């Protein structure tokens, strides 16, 4: 049965230093939840606490309304796939998958049937007698998943399972994990630092920063309506462009913003939001919500520093005076003739611009 997981103000300290700073979260039965965040944000620690591999300093962890803080990993009935796969090197594929059932002293026939079933689902039957050293990265990954599913756990926990694979295999395994979830409909908590994995697999993404949840929501919600500048910058590739701004005037229909910072303030833009004059904020813009124009034809201007050709898409990175980081612009066919070093203007789709206050939180565009 897919479990319902609930985390209530979970905290974790190592040697007096707090790593997880009060995380509250509910994972619905059969939900595919992805924990995402930069290195060191505590996402793996949180997953290990759910698994029972790490003690919970304070707070409560519930599986189907039962507090499981002091239960071991096996009692929680979770299946886990670790980043390194951790296949037992002296056991064959079949023995690796059946190890948990053997420990649970399952009858021999049941053990064999369940191992066969897991190997069939993961297309490992032909490799049953191979040792881990004889397997490719993708095959090892599948054995690790087999070891997790064979025990029919209440929840699957994945700790960066694809980070050791090459790019092509990663895409393939990503699809397989998605397919497996649709097939088994189990509760999944999946940790990754790769936001593409998060976007493609998740029913819901939880973005963590420094041991706290910064936002939780459906992938496209996070992409289109990030709650703060951190999430806005973390979700999406290339990353969102940010331009410092200051409100210089306006009326009930909107405000005028001076773009750039300090002496570099040289452009103005009108956005349909009413803010107090003098308010400082940051404008965020996705690469697909802006376009290149002639130097004097856009809201801001700068110099192209790099082109990133990804096949279907090409992105230009433009250094704009007064902006700490280059602004990515998705190019269309008409502007494909741009070269690094060219001076260009950037036209912003003002209705798609996002606004963030000085505290980093999003400012709602419309009441």
């Amino acid at each position, binding site marked *: 049965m897919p479990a319902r997981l609930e985390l209530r103000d979970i905290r974790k300290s190592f040697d007096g230093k707090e790593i997880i700073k009060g995380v509250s979260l509910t994972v619905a039965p059969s939900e595919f939840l992805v924990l995402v965040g930069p290195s060191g944000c505590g996402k793996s620690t949180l997953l290990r606490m759910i698994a029972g591999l790490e003690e919970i300093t304070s707070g409560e962890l519930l599986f189907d309304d039962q507090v499981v803080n002091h239960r071991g990993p*096996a009692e929680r009935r979770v299946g886990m796939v670790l980043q390194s796969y951790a296949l037992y*090197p002296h056991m064959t594929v079949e023995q690796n998958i059946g190890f*948990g059932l053997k420990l649970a002293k399952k009858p021999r026939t049941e053990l064999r049937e369940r191992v066969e079933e897991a190997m069939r689902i993961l297309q490992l039957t032909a490799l049953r007698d191979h040792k881990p050293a004889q397997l490719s990265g993708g095959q090892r990954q599948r054995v690790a998943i087999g070891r997790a599913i064979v025990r029919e756990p209440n929840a699957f926990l994945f700790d960066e399972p694809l980070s050791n694979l090459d790019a092509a295999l990663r895409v393939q395994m990503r699809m397989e994990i998605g397919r497996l979830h649709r097939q088994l409909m189990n509760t999944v908590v999946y940790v990754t630092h790769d936001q593409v994995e998060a976007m493609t697999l998740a029913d819901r993404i939880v973005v963590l920063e420094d041991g706290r949840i910064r936002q939780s929501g459906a992938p496209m919600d996070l992409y289109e309506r990030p709650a703060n500048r951190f999430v806005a910058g973390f979700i999406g590739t290339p990353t969102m462009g940010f331009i410092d701004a200051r409100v210089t005037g306006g009326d009930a229909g909107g405000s005028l913003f001076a773009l750039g910072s300090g002496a570099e303030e040289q452009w103005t833009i009108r956005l349909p939001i009413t803010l107090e004059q003098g308010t400082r904020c940051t404008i965020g813009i996705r690469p697909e919500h802006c376009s290149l124009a002639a130097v004097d034809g856009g809201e801001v201007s700068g110099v192209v520093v790099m082109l990133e050709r990804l096949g279907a898409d090409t992105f230009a990175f433009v250094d704009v005076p007064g902006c700490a980081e280059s602004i990515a612009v998705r190019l269309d066919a008409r502007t494909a003739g741009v070269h690094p070093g060219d001076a260009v203007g950037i036209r912003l789709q003002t209705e798609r611009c996002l606004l963030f206050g000085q505290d980093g939180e999003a400012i709602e565009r419309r009441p």
Partner: protein
Amino acid sequence: MTPRQLKNAPLRLALHALMLLLAFVFLFPFLFMLSASLKSNQDIFSDLQSLRALLPVGTLTLQNYAEVFGLGNVGRFFLNSVFITIATVGIGLAVNSMAAFALSRLEWRGRAPVLTILVVLLIIPFDAITVPLLFIVASLPGLEMTELGISPTRSWLDTLYVQIIPFIANTFSIFLFYQFFREIPKDFDEAAYVDGATPFQVFRHVIVPSSMPVFATVGILQGLAAWNQYLWPVITVPGDAARPLMIGMQQFFGRTTEWGQVMAYATVITLPVLVAFVIFQRWFVRSVAGSGIKG
């Protein structure tokens, strides 16, 4: 040969010559012992002037071995030594590896100080604790087998277990296991815990099968030490019943002037060690070469 190898040929030749010489230096006493043990006293002395001393040639006989086992209690000494060695190694491997597992893989209060004490103990030679240890075992109540059954004794002296129990826990063995276990990724343990394993099952099913080289190394080192014990049995085993082969040899020297028999006795002592080493050397070499575990 490649041109590079050809260029280095003289150097290689010199190296091989040096290695052959070294091998001969090490083999020489062994060859002499083995061939002399099969010869009569007269043949040994007449062959001494030539290379024949190192070769099993001339009139060969097993008479020396028959005499050795016929004299005194050599058969019993041999069995004592075998028992002491197997017991010390068998129990020692289990105890020391489990101690190292607890130190390297489990979290418990006081682990760090215990590890520090272990490292400190490494530098204390056995000779320094021999006398205090003797006082301890001399006043420890023990048990002995008599015709009437098992009866209590007032000390451990003159028993087999006085030659076994003090040598089971071995800091150097624990340290070797500890170093090896530390290199095994902790992910294996965690995967096993998620699979429902207890710490002992992790040790038994995950750590032990991955650590054969270090088990072979510790087995050989601890086995050699047990087999070659001399000082300790000299002071703790005055009687014949529990006497090991090494002490028997010294006693044997006093009783005979037959060099063939002395060499036969020496062969009886050396051969089991040599056979054990040949059997386990594959793992032993691998372990000494510092092999780790890679996924």
